[in-house]
């Protein structure tokens, strides 16, 4: 075989090897890129939940149903004026004056904030329907009504439970009936 032919063969073989190597390298390095753009807007927010008071179970501190949420139940049992009767062991029963009795129970309100520089919040409450005559619903001795929110506090601290006492005062001439209210609490950041 002539030298020129041998050189040609070597050259072609080398070229083929280079092509194969190049092809292999290209295949292994092949990737795909993509871009996902994320958009959002953060908003300040606050939350309000009801919690059992640490004294729950003692007189004046009945347990809430569904405690730890913003929609709880509070059963005050049955009560009447004569004989200071009350079926619940956890309510605080007292006579108020000569003709009213009162049952009450305390619970905690916890308001937390997020992404807010507000230093405090206002707390207000409202009952859902006008009570019968001679029945009064109060929170911490502040009478509630169904016409609008009644301010309870003007500068409560976020993140710290605030103990509130729900009171129901009933005159001794109120006929026997179920007294029921949905009490809405409203926290507003200052």
């Amino acid at each position, binding site marked *: 075989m002539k030298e020129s032919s041998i050189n040609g063969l070597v050259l072609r073989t080398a070229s083929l090897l280079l092509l194969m190597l190049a092809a292999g390298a*290209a*295949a*292994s390095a*092949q*990737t*795909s*890129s*993509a*871009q*996902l*753009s*994320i*958009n*959002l*807007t*953060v*908003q*300040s*927010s*606050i*939350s309000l939940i009801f919690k059992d008071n640490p004294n729950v179970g003692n007189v004046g501190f009945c347990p809430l149903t569904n405690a730890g949420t913003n929609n709880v139940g509070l059963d005050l049992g049955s009560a009447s004026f004569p004989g200071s009767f009350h079926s619940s062991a956890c309510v605080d029963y007292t006579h108020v004056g000569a003709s009213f009795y009162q049952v009450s129970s305390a619970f905690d309100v916890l308001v*937390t*904030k*997020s*992404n*807010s*520089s507000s230093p405090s919040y206002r707390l207000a409450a409202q009952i859902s329907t006008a009570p019968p005559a001679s029945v009064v619903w109060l929170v911490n001795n502040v009478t509630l009504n169904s016409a609008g929110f009644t301010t309870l506090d003007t500068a409560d601290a976020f*993140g710290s439970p605030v103990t509130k006492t729900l009171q129901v005062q009933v005159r001794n001439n109120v006929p026997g009936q179920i007294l029921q209210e949905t009490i809405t609490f409203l926290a507003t950041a200052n």
Partner: protein
Amino acid sequence: MLAMTALLFAAPAFAQNPTATGVINATLINKNGISLVFDTDPSGVTLGAAGTSAATLNFGTISAFGPLAPGVTRPSVSATNYIVRTVFDVQVIQGGLTSTTYTLSAQLATALPTGFSFKIDGVTLVNGPSNIQTNAVYNVDVSHNLDLTVSTAAPGAGGPAVGTPQSTVINFQASPN
């Protein structure tokens, strides 16, 4: 006599239609290819430019306690932060490769705004590539959870800016295994 014979032989040749031939030397270089597109997941937010490799994902207005946009959930809220989540799909298509699976990686394209961190399928995103999935299958939508952890701190105290649109870009890369 000789001229007459030549004319007789030539006549049939002129009677046929003339023909011509040609060839095309065609070449197609079939190259290996791989592409990645984002698709809207049925349980996630609707992507902008879905089906492309440059999509947008809008969480809308987020907060720790308020309502969220459709397709956005809030798996957790703690005293220090909260997480909002959505789901998106990635589909990688390949041609000409012997690879049967791919590795998906992602990284933040820019520094994150204050008070944010992102995770995809539990993997925290940083400014370098992080593997999200190492054996993903081609040609199908693969859903991924995108978690945004937001500090509950107030603006200026380590928390994010409030009330102003914010954006982040995440780069993805699919590599054949």
